[in-house]
């Protein structure tokens, strides 16, 4: 089996008493697009800086194509980086920016000119090589930064929130474009973002990070459909979390004391506090209790019309709150504020996550 393009083992970074990265293991295959997703301060950017060699790790190893690089300075790692602020050299033209890495590698001038041209073509900046960064729009600067990182044929391409400075429309355009370039070149890519939409759309796999660790790693659908932890469940998309206690291998008692039969995963012991996780778009508001699956009694508090969807906010017996999102099928809202209803969901749409719900949650 060939060595993976990038492998991190037990990677840690501490700054004095603060821990930025608390032990990360990650393997990225050749040509794979992996996203580090997490809130600010979760250690994703530090992880990127460690891979790039901008900061030395406190512990752990970094392998590029099987070779340990933890002791190698940044300039000898062959890693392309696109920064959040692009970090273009303001005193050089777009073409000179792109040529920089090749010049540092002592590539022959003829080849430099050809490869810079190709790189600028690739990012659709043909003919703009003479412009200086200040004469380019935000989106164009972004493309120059991408071309500059790609032209050196790096082992791994690192993208640090490269879309966060662009406006919404351009951002969505660049998502698609970055992925299409990445696929075309087959370049191994690690992308850092706090935007879950970006992560889900662009990635082969998503690593959700929290407090310096990877909470869960998997394909976008895995992460969304089968969150492994409370953090992942709440960070990706919206999620109803209802408190419960495991009573036996096939049933859970909810906060309001109702026993419901749900298959309990083997690793969760009887008596454990759990959260029953249901996506708002998988839950329903009904007037009758369903025979099977989750059913929680409550009262509709508010109904919001959102165009494509309707949102029901339900006050449940026992004090919890539920959120249900229904597609707009053209009919009127079936329930109004004050109606007594059931919040229901099928077995398949419920997931049990170990750990109770902290007090003081809305």
């Amino acid at each position, binding site marked *: 089996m060939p060595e993976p393009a990038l492998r991190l083992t037990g990677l840690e970074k501490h700054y004095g008493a603060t821990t930025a990265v608390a032990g990360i293991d990650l393997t990225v295959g050749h040509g794979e697009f992996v996203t580090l997703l997490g809130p600010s301060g979760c250690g994703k950017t530090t992880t990127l800086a460690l891979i790039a060699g901008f900061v030395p790790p406190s512990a752990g190893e970094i392998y590029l194509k099987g070779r340990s690089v933890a002791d190698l300075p940044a300039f000898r790692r062959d890693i392309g980086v696109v920064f959040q*602020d692009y970090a*273009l050299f303001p005193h050089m033209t777009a073409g000179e920016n792109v040529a920089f890495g090749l010049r*540092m590698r002592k590539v022959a001038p003829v080849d430099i000119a050809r490869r810079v041209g190709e790189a600028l073509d690739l990012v659709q900046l043909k003919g703009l090589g003479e412009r200086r960064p*200040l004469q380019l729009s935000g989106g164009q600067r972004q493309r120059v930064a991408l071309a500059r990182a790609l032209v050196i044929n790096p082992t791994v391409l690192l993208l640090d929130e490269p879309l966060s400075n662009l406006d919404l429309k351009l951002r969505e355009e660049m998502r698609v474009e970055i992925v299409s370039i990445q696929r075309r070149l087959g370049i191994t890519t690690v992308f850092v973002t706090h935007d879950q939409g970006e992560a889900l759309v662009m990635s082969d796999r998503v690593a959700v990070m929290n407090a310096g660790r990877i909470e869960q790693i998997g394909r976008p659908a895995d992460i969304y459909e089968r969150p492994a932890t409370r953090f992942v469940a709440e960070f990706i998309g919206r999620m109803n979390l209802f408190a419960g206690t495991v009573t036996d291998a096939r049933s859970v008692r909810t906060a309001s004391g109702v026993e419901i039969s749900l298959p309990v995963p083997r690793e969760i012991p009887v008596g454990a506090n759990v959260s029953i996780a249901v996506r708002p778009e998988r839950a329903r508001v009904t007037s009758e209790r369903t025979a099977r699956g989750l059913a929680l009694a409550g009262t509709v508090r508010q109904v919001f019309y959102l165009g494509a969807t309707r949102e029901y906010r339900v006050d449940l017996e026992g004090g919890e709150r539920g959120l249900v999102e229904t597609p707009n099928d053209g009919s009127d809202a079936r329930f109004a504020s004050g109606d007594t209803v059931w919040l229901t969901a099928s077995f398949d749409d419920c997931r049990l996550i170990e750990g109770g719900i902290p007090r003081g949650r809305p």
Partner: protein
Amino acid sequence: MSVRRAFNRWRATAAPWAVLRAFVVFVYVFSLGPILITAAVSFNATNRSFFPPRGFSLRWWERAFAPEWVDPLLFSLKLGSLTAVVATALALPLAFALYRYRFRGRQALIALTLGPLMMPTLVTGVGLLQLFQQLGWREQLGFTGLLVGHVVICMPFAVRTVSVSLQTLPPNVELAAASLGATRIATLRWVVLPLVKTGVVAGGVFAFIHSFTDVNLSIFLARPGETPITVRILGFLEFGFAPTLAAVSVITLIVPLALVAVVERVSGLGDFIYGERRRA
């Protein structure tokens, strides 16, 4: 319109401009006036410094170009240039260390570097003279002593301007260069230096001007035959303000002005001199 309203309108619109104009005129009269008077005096046909000048003659200018004046002028130019080079060469790494890194004793080093800025140069001069004598370096007085003294008092300017341009360096460009395969030296050469160039040049120019115009420090460290023009002028003043001195003063004034004009043209130094960044 009532008189009162007319007055109020005048006070609101025209008056501030009138005050500003008066102020500007005031500033110019007192900054340019002495120069113009000095220049005029140098063309006197008489032995005394009359203003307005009596008659017209170029003989004082002829005297001003005699070796007794040209030598100290060249000495000052040489001293100023070398001071500028040494001060900026030292200021560059110093500014880097002070404003890029956090280390023990950083505050102390900043105080030590910028200290001479706050100290009367006269005191620095006396101190340096004492030091040289204590160390038995009397032989080093003159050019070497002056160079040391001038570097001490000029370096703060260079450190300031260089650090200002270091602070305007875009945050990640050095990391970007490293990721593209540039060693630290290559990063310095191709990325950092070109971006802080204006600050370095400005520091050099300020250092030169400060050195060229200094008299307080120089009077202690100069010695016969190795005397800057300012000290020479001061010495000559004991014999009264002759028209020759007026001519010499004008020359002494023009030299740094011309230098600044040239450098400004070449490097766009205006940003630093006028305190604004005109380039976007």
